[in-house]
């Protein structure tokens, strides 16, 4: 990485790296200074430290890892001595960021992903663009990251207490996790969610895959209309679906039953299965089934031995979407379900309404971990699918 472009001259230390380091230093100095009510001295001190750091690292510490860790350690110790635990963490973070920044600037890494002929303006634009994208990713993740520490709140409110901000261990507790694992309501709703979502998923995947295969045939009458009907659960505003199902299911005796909720959730999950499986089938090479038929395999055998393994990743990914739809669904279950089918989102919803408690956040933290596992599964499956596709003659 570091010497990726030997033909690019190393940027001028005094004319380029150090002034930019000064700006970064001024910014972090301002943040740290404000925390202590002394923004102006903070800015000045920040500039001095950052410029010195940039100079020392660029000139005397060619080993990046050592430079970064050293800076972080020094800054961390300074923070610990000056403020305490929170200072330690802030110091390590600032140290890591500033030292990384110094190397990034001084070794012309910032040009690494633009063509060599790019002008200074191009490079600036390119990095600004990356920075903007970083901010957008931050926007996506920040709410989740910010709210999860509250699940360790020692109090029963969604509020960062002064003790939490001071990183005082007394401000933190695992009691909301304990509550989740010991409270019968939460455990009951978790059990219900795991009782409803998989069955709903199996229904949507079963019906959905068959229909997607049917839809991908070359001559399907009324294809557009059928597709519109099958996709409709995703399109119709949820509140309308919920109210409609409520009245209708009441009439046929399904309201408030396990199967009522399962059927409703299966209907909501179907569009996802249809969309993902038809998308997989678009790239499916039909000559494979013909070849199988030529070699004497019956339609059922062809389906399970040839078609199914190839479209399986699409089926599974659709199934995961259907699963999460059921697992995260609150509006319809509130209407169609009754106490016996209280799912996790429902329990969270009443939790938010009747007694705000960070147990909800503890549940969320557990679910986020669960989502990460699911997402990794999807990623692995996708890679597998790409490998398989690569083998098929398309």
């Amino acid at each position: 990485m570091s010497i990726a472009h030997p033909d690019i001259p190393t940027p001028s230390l005094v004319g380029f790296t150090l002034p930019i380091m000064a700006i970064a230093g001024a910014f972090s100095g301002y943040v740290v200074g404000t925390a202590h009510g002394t923004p102006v001295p903070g800015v000045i001190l920040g500039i001095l430290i950052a410029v010195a750091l940039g100079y020392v690292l660029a000139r005397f510490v060619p080993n990046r890892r050592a430079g970064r860790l050293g800076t972080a350690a020094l800054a961390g110790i300074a923070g610990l001595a000056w403020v305490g635990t929170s200072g330690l963490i802030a110091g390590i973070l600032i140290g890591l960021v500033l030292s990384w920044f110094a190397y990034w600037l001084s070794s012309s890494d910032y040009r690494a992903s633009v063509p060599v002929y790019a002008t200074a303006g191009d490079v600036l634009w390119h990095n600004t663009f990356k920075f903007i994208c970083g901010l957008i990713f931050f926007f996506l993740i920040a709410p989740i990251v910010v709210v999860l520490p509250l699940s360790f709140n020692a109090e029963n409110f969604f509020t960062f207490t002064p003790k939490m901000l001071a990183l005082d261990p007394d401000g933190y507790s695992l009691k909301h996790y304990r509550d989740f694992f010991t409270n019968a309501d939460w455990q009951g709703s978790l059990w219900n969610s795991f009782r409803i979502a998989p069955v709903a998923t199996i229904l949507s995947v079963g019906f959905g895959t068959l229909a997607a295969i049917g839809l991908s045939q070359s001559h399907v009458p009324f294809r557009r209309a059928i597709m519109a009907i099958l996709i409709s659960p995703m399109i119709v505003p949820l509140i309308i679906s919920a109210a409609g199902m409520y009245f209708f299911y009441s009439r046929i005796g399904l309201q408030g039953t396990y199967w009522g909720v399962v059927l409703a959730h299966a209907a909501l999950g179907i569009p996802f299965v249809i969309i993902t499986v038809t998308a997989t089938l678009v790239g499916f090479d039909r000559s494979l089934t013909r070849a199988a038929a030529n070699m004497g395999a019956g339609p059922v055998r062809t389906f399970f031995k040839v078609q199914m393994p190839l479209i399986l990743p699409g089926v599974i990914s659709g199934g995961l979407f259907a699963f999460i739809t059921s697992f995260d669904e609150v509006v319809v279950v509130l209407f169609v379900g009754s106490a016996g089918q209280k799912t996790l989102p429902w329990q969270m919803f009443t939790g938010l309404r009747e007694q705000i408690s960070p147990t909800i956040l503890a549940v969320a933290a557990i679910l986020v971990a669960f989502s990460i596992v699911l997402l990794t599964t999807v990623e692995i499956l996708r890679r597998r699918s790409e490998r398989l596709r690569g083998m098929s003659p398309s």
Partner: protein
Amino acid sequence: MSETIEAGPMRAADGTPLKKSLARALRRQKLRALALIAPLLIFILVTFIAPIADMLFRSVENQIVSDTLPRTVVALKDWDAASDEAPGEPVFAALAVDFQIATELKNHTKLGSRLNYEDPGISSLFRKSGRSADDIGKSFMDRFVGIDAAWKKPETWAALFGDDVWLADATAWADAKDKDAREPAFKLRDGVGDALPATAETYRTFARAVQAEGRKGLVETKPWPVLFTALSQDLTSATPEALAALTDVDTALLQQAATAVAGTEPFAYRDAFLAIDKGWGDVDAWRTIRAYSPRYTPGYFLNAIDLEKGADGISARPDDQKIYIKLFIRTMWMSMLITFSCLLLGYPVAWLLANLRSSTANLLMILVLLPFWTSLLVRTSAWKVLLQQQGVINDILVWLGLVDDGNRLIMINNQFGTITAMTHILLPFMILPLYSVMKTIPPSYLRAAKSLGATNWTAFWRVYFPQSVPGIGAGSILVFILSIGYYITPEIVGGTQGVFISNRIAYHISTSLNWGLAAALGAILLAVVLLLYYVYDKIVGIDNVKLG
């Protein structure tokens, strides 16, 4: 068939003409496709489409008025709604029977609430009148009991209106006092319906209600006061021959009552109702009842677009009640803003993902999908924690000295809160379709444009952007459709100014119980969504949506 054979067309191996054979194969193929689709289609039709159709049907349904006040509705046909006078005696006579029955069956407050949607104030009129409605019946009862004390007894009524066989069974049942057995189902005596139509009908309703309750038998239950009102009306209009035609009953009792009724002053129904509540003299209330007496009504739809149906046609609602058009416009406008901000944030990210190495891109994709799979409720609560005045963002801004502590920004319980939170929630729905389109645009096009002398901007705007338009269309319509139906997030972070039409629908379903209006609002919303879906299908094609 034979002509084609003679013309010597190509034939399949089994000797049938090729054209026919192909057509058959095609038909078989079609059938097989349909057979594969059919289970799901039926499933969706039953579990999803039927409920929605059923729900939307409520937006025009209006049986409640003619079911609750059947006689009044008929009598009202002769009343001139344009006149400035409340209807006359016949209408009030009909109302006397209808309203008392409604009170006994506890239907009058339901009807009051229903009519209150059209004319605020009627609900209290119906409710208040319900409490003293049987005063009218009681005054008739006193008259009849004054003629003969037998009228007070349930047996007299049961003998008069009940079929002989039923009566014997019911009496036996009452004597047996068997707790588990139910009283035999009531059967009306032949002919009594012709002689005393209103009373017979009322008694049948009475019998049904008593037997549904099931605690006491008909022969043991005191007759409703309304029966006396109905009987009095029947006896006034009944011909002596009709009464004489009744055999096997105590005709003497009836004749005696008929003579007595004929001899007294006719009852002043109108005055009786006015004495219960002055509101019955209000022409507007009567116009509303008349206007909403048909079994199907456009009233809910009119209401949903801030109109109302009065005696003199359709007119705009008063200004302080006009909220729905404003809400529809607000829903549209905010959904557009949300779509636009999703596009603004989603485009660069999708571009980045499409142009990175696939392993890095897939890693970053997890960052996009993670919020997508985190509970909606948690994400919404997170925005509450972030955006409120004592929240994280304001705290940081104050801490940095960018905002004064006394002037913290108001970012929640308004439109800003809804737009921010929903942009966050719907952003993945923009990024995913954009990404799948951008992946198909070869990067060499941009390089070619640049090498031909285009500036960065021109290359992007003239070459890349036009090719990404299908993705923009797909993402935008998807986000727009999803956002105009949103309900939970605006409810939690939207305050009063940041809520959508869906919140209104939910309010009418669970709080105000105006299900007809909820259905009408829903139908309009659904029509808009379907229109957009149609456009989406035309422009992009629903097959081209990809998720993940």
